[in-house]
């Protein structure tokens, strides 16, 4: 099953489309989402974050199982989507206009 999360995080399965492997793609998904979508992802994932961190702490990145990898991707997406929800009240960075800032290389997970 592609993009399946560890069993103890099955309640986050409705948000598994946020488990995207690159920052560039996670940011693109963020700015093409509505605030309602961002808020509901945040409201579901943020309260589980301590548990997710404890779970992810058990795995080194060169031996991480696929389901844990998807969980890590999903929480990487929470990092970028936290800005609209906690700070901006809009998907884009205010006053950023047409400016872009693209990841040209990032460590693969």
């Amino acid at each position, binding site marked *: 099953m592609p993009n399946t999360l560890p069993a103890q995080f099955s309640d986050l399965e409705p948000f598994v489309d946020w488990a995207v492997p690159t920052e560039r793609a996670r940011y693109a998904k963020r700015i093409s989402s509505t605030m309602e979508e961002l808020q509901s992802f945040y409201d579901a994932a943020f309260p589980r974050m301590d548990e997710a961190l404890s779970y992810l702490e058990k795995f080194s*990145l060169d031996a991480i199982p696929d389901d844990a990898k998807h969980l890590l991707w999903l929480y990487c997406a929470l990092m970028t989507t936290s800005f609209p929800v906690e*700070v901006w009240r809009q998907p884009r960075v205010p006053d950023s206009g047409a400016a872009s800032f693209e990841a040209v290389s990032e460590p693969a997970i």
Partner: protein
Amino acid sequence: MPLFPKPAEGSWTEHYPDLGTGPVSYEDSISPEVYERERDAIFARTWLNVGRVEQLPKVGSYFTREIDAARSSIVVVRSSKDEIRAFHNICRHRGNKLVWTDYPAEETSGTFRQFTCKYHGWRYNLEGECTFVQQETEFFDLDKGDYPLASVQADEWEGFIFVNLDPANTTPLRESLGKFAKGIEGYPFHELSQVHRYRAEVGSNWKLFIDAFTEFYHAPILHAKQSVAEESRKLSDIGYEALAYELDGPHGMVSTWTGGGEPKDLNMVKPIERKARSGLFGPWDAPNIGLDELPPSLNPSGHRAWGLDSFLFFPNFMLLIWKENWVITYHYWPTSYNTHIFEGTCYFAPPKNGRERLAQELAVVTFKEYALQDGNTLEATQSMLESRTPISTFPLNDQEILLRHLHKTANRYVNELEPRRTPAATGA
């Protein structure tokens, strides 16, 4: 009363009397003519950082760099003698660009055993010697030994690879980098191999972005909303003062406190930062990178609140070393008088597990949010400077000393530029 002691002269700026204290003209940032002179006086003549040794892990590893400001494309390679070599990216036969993939104007990287020109198949070994000429007997008295690739001076400092495009340059890299670099030597950059690299095309003169990143005076205002409301009010009331500034020849540095590490009051930071234990100043829990003692260039004031030193190595390389054992570099590559490519790269110790990876992710995406705000503000500045309102000079305060120094240094290089001797002029 300053929060942190200033030099006996009363200010950082007056400690360096050549800088003056008057308003500064920004004509140098809106003039195509000045930019053309900067290309020859600065980018074609100074040591430029083009990458790190980790980008060339084995013999035959290479990357290309498009240095538009110096009208150059170069290829940097780890040679068969395990040395870092740089060459002009041009085939000796008829001038085709030697190394590129799909799009001739875009940079590329990879590994090969030799250079092979796509056009007529001429080949060069990793030392740049011509080893094969297609249908060699069709040429007239051609000796392959006379057709090596054109070499570019290349050297390495602490794993950072530099090139100098001026064949007449006689200043060694280390001498050129000066005392700041000397005093950073030994910092374990090689331990910070987890690299996130970002790139942006920015609609401003290259010096305006350096201006933005060599002063923190703007931080409590432009980035106010990135802090929680109460903290933001406090920051803008206090304003910003650095711990220390220093200049060394064309280079400059600012030493500062930050909000790094675990905050005294967790309510000062956003909920996501509390959970991830990370933020703009990096992961709160510094990894062990074997740094027992800070090298002498770091935290020059010896202040216990120290959090970050930010060095500008003229012309376009900035190195930020954080107390929490990570590093950022900035590079500014001009593409015209009012555009440049900005590169921001974050270097961390490899994360030991998923939790550490997430902490690094939050630091990196926070850096991106700030950079997006900074970059767009620059376009607003550039367009107004170019509108040539009656306002032509601008006051710079003591926390903007590095801007004053940058523009003065760039102007000095431009004014000292002698017309380059062409082969025709020397009779060659």
